[in-house]
């Protein structure tokens, strides 16, 4: 499924003194198989953009085209968008409400009109993929923070959305939990959810997980392209209060010091390989 946004503008508290423009003329297209990282500092409009994409926030101007098609009115477009999209909000564990983890994960599939049997297999599959299959009979309120986060994500994943949107999925997790979560998302992509877009503050997360990067600044979409294209514009990113992954900064430093390294290195593993090759060693398997 492809989804497209055309010239979207959105203002919070429109017509009030506290009005704040969150999106200015944003156009974006996601195709089947895309895995996009959305970066931008706090207040750049990432969360708003994601809600518009999911059909949850009617834009003031512009058009939402779910499944690449134009619809006569916003309402029907939003209905299609909601059906094919799963949105994991920031701190999704704050939305758990059922007595057991099983029931909470089953909430989405049952709402989509699946039979009890189908929902059951969806719940078990989603729980297995997210790594919470042993917690199904527990109360979601008895779990640890990281477990709650996984359960909440499983609740969205169980609907098997074609487009999965995640707003800061690793916020507040420890490094290990974050790493596992991102690896899990990588394994979902392509096979369970066709398209994934995730917003993140962490350039490291983005660099090693996604295929393409979109950059938001002040409500505008200012850059988009492959990970290498975007992170090679380090100066521009820094001027927007963003940064490149730590390892690329080290590589930049080494290049400045005169070492013949490539500029498109964004993960520690790649850097290790490149440096090892330079020192005459083999691949660091």
């Amino acid at each position, binding site marked *: 499924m492809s989804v497209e946004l055309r010239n979207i503008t959105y203002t919070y508290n429109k017509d009030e003194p506290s009005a704040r423009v969150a999106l200015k003329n944003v156009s974006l297209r996601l195709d089947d198989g895309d895995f996009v990282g959305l970066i931008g500092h706090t207040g750049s409009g990432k969360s708003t953009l994601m809600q518009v994409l999911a059909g949850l926030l009617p834009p003031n101007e512009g058009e939402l085209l779910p499944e690449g098609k134009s619809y006569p009115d916003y309402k029907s477009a939003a209905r299609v968008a*909601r059906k094919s999209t799963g949105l994991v909000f920031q701190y999704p564990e*704050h939305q758990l409400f059922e007595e057991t983890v099983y029931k909470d994960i089953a909430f*989405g599939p049952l709402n989509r009109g699946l039979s009890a049997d189908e929902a059951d297999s969806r719940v078990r599959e989603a729980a297995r993929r997210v790594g919470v299959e042993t917690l199904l009979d527990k109360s979601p309120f008895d779990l640890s923070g990281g477990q709650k986060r996984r359960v909440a994500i499983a609740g969205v994943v169980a609907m098997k959305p074609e487009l999965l949107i995640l707003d800061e999925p690793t916020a507040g997790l420890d490094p290990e939990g974050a790493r596992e979560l991102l690896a899990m998302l990588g394994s979902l992509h392509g096979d369970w959810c066709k398209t994934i877009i995730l917003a993140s503050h962490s350039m490291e997360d983005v660099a090693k997980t996604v295929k393409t990067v979109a950059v938001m600044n002040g409500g505008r979409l200012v850059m988009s392209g492959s990970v290498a294209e975007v992170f090679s514009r380090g100066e521009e990113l820094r001027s927007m209060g963003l940064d490149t992954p730590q390892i690329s900064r080290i590589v930049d430093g080494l290049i400045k010091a005169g070492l013949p390294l490539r500029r498109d290195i964004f993960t520690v593993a790649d850097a290790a390989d490149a440096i090892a090759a330079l020192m005459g060693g083999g691949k660091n398997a």
Partner: protein
Amino acid sequence: MLRDITLGQYYSVDSPLHRMDPRTKLLWVIYYMTLLFMASSAWEYALIVIFTAIAVRASRVPLSFITRGLKPIVILMLFTVGLNLFMTPTGSELWRWGFLKITDDGVVIAVKMAVRLVLLIIGSSLLTLTTSPIVLTGGIERLLSPFARLGLPSHEIAMMMSIALRFIPTLMEETDKIIKAQTSRGADFESGGPIKRVRAMAPILVPLFVGAFRRADELAVAMECRCYHGGTGRTSLRRFAFGRDDFFALVWAVGLLAAIITIKVVTR
């Protein structure tokens, strides 16, 4: 939809009403309500309507913003008006259908009730629209402080109110987010019969309450960490003083009372 509730929402502009001492405004609202319930003839109501219009104008809050706050009470108003319209036994009958009848007295009472309710809401929301919550509770604390000697915990009451007011927008934002999150999971809050709709509220209410308790807990710890121990010996950053605008408020108060008494005497 949740943005429609204006109660407890401060509209930040500069106007004579905004500059007034919160104590003046609080006393004015009580005074205004008393006048409203004293009023009986159409002339008195007309006078209060005109006065309210002037106050709204002076506050520089757009009328559309104020009337939005009236939406939630529309049902209450229809109920009150309907009850008075159909159930007033006195007066000459205008219309009858079964046990329902409309009398001329009923019409008059229903109209008065409607006007009174609308004015009541507009008058009290003018207070919260022109006074930031923190200033408002400061004013309440000062007004209640003479009763502290009688054992009234005026500071604690004011603190509770300011915390409650402080959390209205936060909880509304949270509710908005939870509704969206559950909508994204296919929850449907708009169709089905009343029982189904009430059941559909659980996915919103449970997380909302859990979140509210979590916030309360965090706030309590944060306050303890800063050695909060109640009102004794506590000084305030804000000092309230009686100014020019408050003087005008007093003049208006006296003027309005004089006008109403005049009407009452003349039309008797």
